[in-house]
C-alpha cells in the first residue's frame, strides 16, 4: 500500500472478488471508503477517550490504575473490524484493546463509568478498567490472570464448531503472556479441535518492564505457529489496513473450517505498563522514534489524505464528533452514582441470588458508614 501513488484519487484497486485467506491483500482490497473512514473514527475515538481518561485520572476520578494503548490503536481497531457483527463473532480483549471493544459496541460512557467504579458501570463496580463484556455483546470480559482467556475462547469457539454455527472467535495475547501455560494449553487445544479461532499476539516490545528477548528466545513469536500445526502470519500492527487484512483472512479461514491461525502484530507500547510507570527501563530515544516515525494515526491520516484523497475537513468533522461523544459520555458518567454497598452480596450464584449479610452487619449500613475509610484510594499501582 505504501508504494501507491500519493495525492489525487487512489488508483482503482486490483479487481478482487472475494477474500482468499492465502492471498495477502485480498481482504483489504474489498474495504469501501466508508469502512476506511470508520476505521479512522474508531482509532481516533480510542486515542481521544484514553486521553480523557488520563484527565480524569489526574483529577483522581479514576479508581485504580489507568492502562493506555497509545500507539497501538491500529492493531486493536483493525483486527476487531475484521469480525462480523451479524454473524455473531466474539472477541476477547486485553488491557490494550479498548479500541477493539469500541469497534464491537462498547460505549464510552460505560468505559468511563467502569474506570470510575460507578454503580451503573457494566460490572456495577465489581471489576476494574475495561474488564467487562458478555457473549451477546460480541466481546467477553477478561480477567487479570494472563493467558486464561485463550482456553476460554477455545471453548467459546468449540461451541461454534459443535453447533455447526458459522461464527468465529478472536483472542488477543500479549508478547509477555505467551509465556503462560494457559496460552499454550489453550492454543494447542483449539488447534487440535480445529476451533474457529484467531489468536493475535500483540508484540508491543514489552511486558511491563520486560523486553521480549527476556520473554522468549525465539526470533519472532509467529514461529510458534508451526509447533502448534497451524498457519501463522506476521503483520505491521501499526498499519490498520494491514492489520485488518491479515485478521480478516484468518477469520475467513476459520469460518470455512480451516481452524486456528496465529497472527503476530508488530507494534509498540509508547506509554508505561500503566500510568504510574515512568518507563525508566526503555532505551533513550526508542519512544520518540516510534512516535515520530510510526504513529498509527499519523500513518493512516497520510494514507487517507493521500491515496483516498479524503479532505482535511471531513476528518476534522470526525474528530469533532469524537470529542462531542466523549464530552457527553464524561458528563453522563460523572453523574452516575456509586454502588450501593449491599449490592456486593448479590449474584455470586444463580441460586441463592444473594449471600446473607454477616451477623455482625445486622446494623449493616450504619456499621459501614461509621468505619474509617480505607486509605489508598487511587493509589493502587498494579
Amino acid at each position: 500500500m505504501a508504494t501507491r501513488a500519493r495525492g489525487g484519487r487512489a488508483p482503482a484497486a486490483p479487481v478482487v472478488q472475494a477474500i482468499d485467506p492465502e492471498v495477502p491483500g485480498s481482504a483489504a482490497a474489498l474495504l469501501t471508503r466508508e469502512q476506511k473512514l470508520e476505521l479512522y473514527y474508531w482509532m481516533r475515538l480510542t486515542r481521544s477517550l484514553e486521553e480523557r481518561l488520563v484527565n480524569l485520572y489526574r483529577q483522581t476520578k479514576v479508581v485504580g490504575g489507568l492502562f493506555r494503548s497509545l500507539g497501538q490503536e491500529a492493531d486493536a481497531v483493525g483486527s476487531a473490524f475484521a469480525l462480523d457483527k451479524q454473524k455473531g463473532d466474539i472477541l476477547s480483549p486485553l488491557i490494550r484493546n479498548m479500541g477493539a471493544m469500541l469497534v464491537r459496541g462498547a460505549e464510552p460512557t460505560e468505559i468511563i463509568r467502569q474506570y470510575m467504579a460507578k454503580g451503573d458501570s457494566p460490572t456495577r463496580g465489581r471489576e476494574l478498567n475495561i474488564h467487562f463484556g458478555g457473549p451477546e455483546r460480541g466481546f467477553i470480559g477478561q480477567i487479570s490472570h494472563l493467558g486464561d482467556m485463550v482456553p476460554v475462547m477455545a471453548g467459546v469457539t468449540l461451541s461454534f464448531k459443535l453447533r455447526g454455527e458459522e461464527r468465529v472467535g478472536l483472542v488477543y495475547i500479549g508478547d509477555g503472556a505467551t509465556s503462560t501455560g494457559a496460552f499454550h494449553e489453550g492454543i494447542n487445544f483449539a488447534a487440535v479441535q480445529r476451533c474457529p479461532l484467531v489468536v493475535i499476539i500483540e508484540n508491543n516490545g514489552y511486558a511491563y518492564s520486560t523486553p521480549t528477548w527476556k520473554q522468549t528466545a525465539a526470533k519472532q513469536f509467529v514461529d510458534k505457529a508451526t509447533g502448534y500445526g497451524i498457519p501463522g502470519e506476521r503483520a505491521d500492527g501499526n498499519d490498520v489496513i494491514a492489520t485488518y487484512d491479515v485478521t480478516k483472512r484468518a477469520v475467513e479461514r476459520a469460518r470455512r473450517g480451516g481452524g486456528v491461525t496465529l497472527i503476530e502484530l508488530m507494534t509498540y507500547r509508547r506509554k508505561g505498563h500503566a500510568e504510574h510507570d515512568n518507563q525508566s527501563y526503555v532505551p533513550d530515544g526508542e519512544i520518540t522514534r516510534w512516535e515520530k516515525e510510526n504513529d498509527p494515526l499519523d500513518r493512516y491520516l497520510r494514507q487517507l489524505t493521500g491515496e483516498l484523497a479524503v479532505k482535511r475537513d471531513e476528518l476534522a468533522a470526525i474528530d469533532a464528533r469524537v470529542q462531542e461523544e466523549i464530552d457527553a459520555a464524561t458528563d453522563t458518567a460523572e453523574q452516575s452514582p456509586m454502588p450501593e454497598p449491599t449490592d456486593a452480596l448479590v449474584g455470586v450464584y444463580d441460586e441463592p441470588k444473594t449471600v446473607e449479610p454477616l451477623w455482625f452487619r445486622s446494623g449493616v449500613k450504619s456499621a459501614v458508614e461509621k468505619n474509617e475509610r480505607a486509605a489508598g484510594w487511587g493509589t493502587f499501582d498494579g
Partner: protein
Amino acid sequence: MAEPNGEITYLEAIREALFEEMERDANVFCLGEDIGAYGGAFKVTDGLLAKFGEQRVIDTPISEIAIVGAAAGAAHMGLRPVCEMQFIDFISCAYDMLTNYVATARYRAFLSTPMVVRGPSGGYVRGGPFHSQNPEAAFLHTPGLKIVYPATASDAKGLMKAAIRDEDCVLFFEHKYLYRRVKERMPEGDHVVPIGKARVAREGKDLSIITYAATVWKALEAAETLEREQGLSVEVLDLRSLLPMDDEAIVATVKKTNRALIVHEDTRTGGIAGEISARINELAFEWLDAPVLRVTAADVPLPYSPPLEDYVLPQTADIVLAARRLAEY
C-alpha cells in the same frame, strides 16, 4: 450391568446419570483425557462415545487448564460441559482457572458457567501421594463454586444430575474406593438429589458423627460397633454437599445429641472439619456438652505403602475410639 436384584455400583450410577442427562439435554457434553474410546481411566464414561459420538465425548490433550477453561467458554454459550480429571489430583493444575476465572464469572461479569468438573478422588487404594487426594478444602474457600462428594450410589447419580442441571460450576468428587464397592438400587424416575442438603445416614441420640464420602461407611461401621459394644446410639450425618453446606442439618443433629465428632479422610490442618467446627460453635454452642472433635488423616502427604497409608488415613477403630472418648466426656 445391573445385578439381578437391580443394584448398580456407585460408578455405574454416575455413568447412568451421564447417559440420562446427555439424552435429556443435547447441550450436555463430556471432555477429558482418554474418556472416549477408552472410556476413562476408571471406565466411568464407557459407552458414551458409542452412543453420543465424537462431538459430545471429546478426548482432549493433557491440558487441565484448557479442559476447564474451554468448558467455561462453552458453558457461557449455553452448553453444559462435564469435564473429567483423570484423577482429581490433577485439578490442581486448573486451580487458577477454576478459582479465578470460573468461580467469579457470574459475579464480575454476569456470565453463566453451568459446568461440572468430576474425577476419581480419595485414598484407601494404595495410590500414593498423587492419586489419592481429597481437594475439597482447597476449593471450599472460593465463593462461586459448589462442591459435592457423595457416599452412596443413589446420591452419586442424583447429585450428578443436579450438578449437570445447576447454573453454576459444580466440583463433583467421586470416591474411587467406593466406585465398585458400594451398590444400590436406583430410585425410579428422574432421580435428582438437591445440592446443599445433607442426609441422615443413621439415626441416633447419644452423639453425632458428621462426615462425607468414604468415611461415611467407616462411620457407619463404627456406629455399629459402638452400639454393640457400648450401647451407644450414634447418629451419622452424611453431608453430601460441602459447598453450600447444610447448616440446618448440622445444627439439628448437634441439638439432638449435644456431641459432635467430625470425620474426614483429608489431612487435618486446614481440612474442612475446621469450618464445620466453627459453624457448630457459632450456631449451637449452647447445646454442646463436649468439645467438637475431629478424626482426620495425619498432616503428611499420603504415602503409598499399605502400612503407611493405613496409619495415616482415618480408620474405623479411630472413629470408635474418638466417639467413645466424646461420649464419656
